[in-house]
């Protein structure tokens, strides 16, 4: 578990599930109407996005339902594999956790990516904490 009670997390919703991503791993939250499709890729690679001149790949790991009409919302993760956008349904807020611990049961809908545990914020709302680095590393095909 790499988080502690003092770290900030980006609280967001993915298909109705509350998910928290450590802010240290988030470059920015970006919205776009267009993704450039990349052929011959696994289906979870949603496309490419132009972020101020940088070309960033965007992943859709959960067939994310878009809440912002026709906008794609993504958390741009800064990882060992470079910046990678991860589609989310909605951005909530920055959250801090009063308690953080292992997640007892992860909903099967989220099972494709690694979650390092669950956290409770001040209001008692629970979030599943995403391990951003593992999440991206886990999508890379083995040589």
């Amino acid at each position, binding site marked *: 578990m790499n988080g502690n009670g003092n770290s900030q997390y980006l609280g967001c919703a993915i298909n109705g599930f509350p998910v928290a991503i450590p802010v240290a791993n988030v470059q920015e939250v970006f919205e776009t109407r267009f993704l*450039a499709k990349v*052929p*011959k*890729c696994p289906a979870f690679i949603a496309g490419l*996005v*132009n972020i101020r001149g940088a*070309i960033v790949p965007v992943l859709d790991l959960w067939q994310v339902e878009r809440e912002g009409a026709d906008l794609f919302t993504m958390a741009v993760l800064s990882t060992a*594999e470079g*910046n990678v956008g991860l589609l989310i349904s909605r951005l909530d807020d920055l959250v801090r956790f009063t308690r953080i611990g292992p997640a007892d049961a992860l909903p099967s809908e989220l099972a494709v990516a690694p979650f390092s545990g669950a956290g409770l914020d001040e209001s008692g709302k629970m979030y599943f904490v995403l391990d951003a680095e593992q999440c*991206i590393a886990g999508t890379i095909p083995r040589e």
Partner: protein
Amino acid sequence: MREEDLIIDPDMEEIVQGFVIESTEYLEHLDQDLVSLDENPGDMELVGKVFRAFHTLKGNSRALGFLDMETMVHRTEDVIRKVRDGEARVVPAMMDVLLASVDMVKALLNDISEKKKRERDLAPLIAQLQAVNEDGPAPGAEPAAAATEPSVAAGTSTEKKTAAPTIRVDTIKLDKLLSTAGELVLSKNRLLNFTQRLEQGQAVASPEEFLNEINAQLGFLVSDMQVDVMSTRMQPISRVFSKYPRVVRDLGRETGKEIELVITGQETELDNAIIEEIGDPLIHMVRNSCDHGVEMPDARVAAGKNPKGRVELSAYYEGNFAIISIRDDGKGIDTEVIKRKAIEKKLISPEQAATMAKSDILNLIFLPGFSTAEKVTAVSGRGVGMDVVKNSIGKLKGIIEMDSEKGKGTVLKIKLPLTLASMIGLEIEVGGIRYLVPQEAIVEIVRLPASGYAAAVKDKTFLFRGNYTLPVVNVRDMLINGNKNAAPVQQGYLIVTSEVEKRTGLLVDNVLQQHEVVVKPLGKYLSRFHLSEINGATIMGDGSIELVINASVIAGFQTQGAA
């Protein structure tokens, strides 16, 4: 080897960095000059130049307190001093020791550049230098690089790590850039003045005319600026070529062959990105020519040739490309041997072999897993085949071609774009998505329906044109469906692409327009997915992203499938 960190005073870092760059240049020249001296032992002007280089290196390393380096250079300088003063003669064995010293100095400089303090045993080399200095070369002295690690020998890829990511730019180029930038500011001010007048509601005479004029002027200046900036990245190929006289000399000594290396066109300039990457494949090819091409002196004499083999390395421009050619007058390539090996390795069938053209047979060498070396030698049989060479050149958007005549020699030609920074691409549409095809890959465009376009053998489509048959690849199948559609599509365009005398038509839905674009790589993450069909991506004028397709991979699929 024991190593610890080398502490450099932060105030001194810049000076040390400059020292490393300057010394690297001296050492590169020394390699070349020592090899020339070996060939012309009486050239006293050259002796003087070599002496001065060692002398400067000694002074600089002493001033910065790099004592090991100073000692090494000092002892080497002593030997050259004797030659300069006429007290000693240049002999090959002396050169072996001097070149080994240069290698050691390179290794020491590499340590400084990597900020490491490594324990290196200088004593054996110093003893050899002393022996050479006192009474000619010591009998049985270890020649060449034996005293140092093999990894520091000239021209190996480890040198790249030491090269600082800086380039030297001619001040004339910078002045030109500055003056273009100045003009750009003037045009911007004119535009600013114009908009201010509009904002203040002042009458502006013929605004359309003004906008057209300023637009043209800015367009002109911006493309000027692009050319100027690009020119600062252009570096002479001599930076790469200068390493090879040493490599060829050492190879000659190792293998007992006599090889003359003739270099022309050293001043040919290429983009720095290409210069940095072309060294490895090129050195492999030079080694190949020396090792597999040029015969042993007795074999050459028996074949009625000069006992001394000749390898010509040249660079020149051809249109918008730079050509690097490596020609040897060695034994050439026996196409029968190639055919046999290819059949053995099941790369082709005996029936195919019987009908293959000479150029196709020679091209088999570039297939993965093909190596005709009778035995693996330390020189070129390092497990890197010509397929790796071809791939590295392909990454630089280059093309490699080979021609050879048994008994007469071999010539390899590399065709490279002058720059990787921008390219002209043709925008095409496939399945509703727009892509770019590099202009240099396109030979012609055929609009469908066209006569002679038909489905033929099995499920493959061909275009029959006059005296040749063009296989057709449906780009939609390649990029989107991933499988082949049996019925040939009758509408669209064929982008005809060629590589080494092979042509293939790429079927696309629509052809749009040409763009000059800057190609960006897809990045680390996507590189893990080995999308060989895609060269990179580019950002268009409206901010959208378009992918640049690799025409040769897409075209190659069908030909590979047929083979």
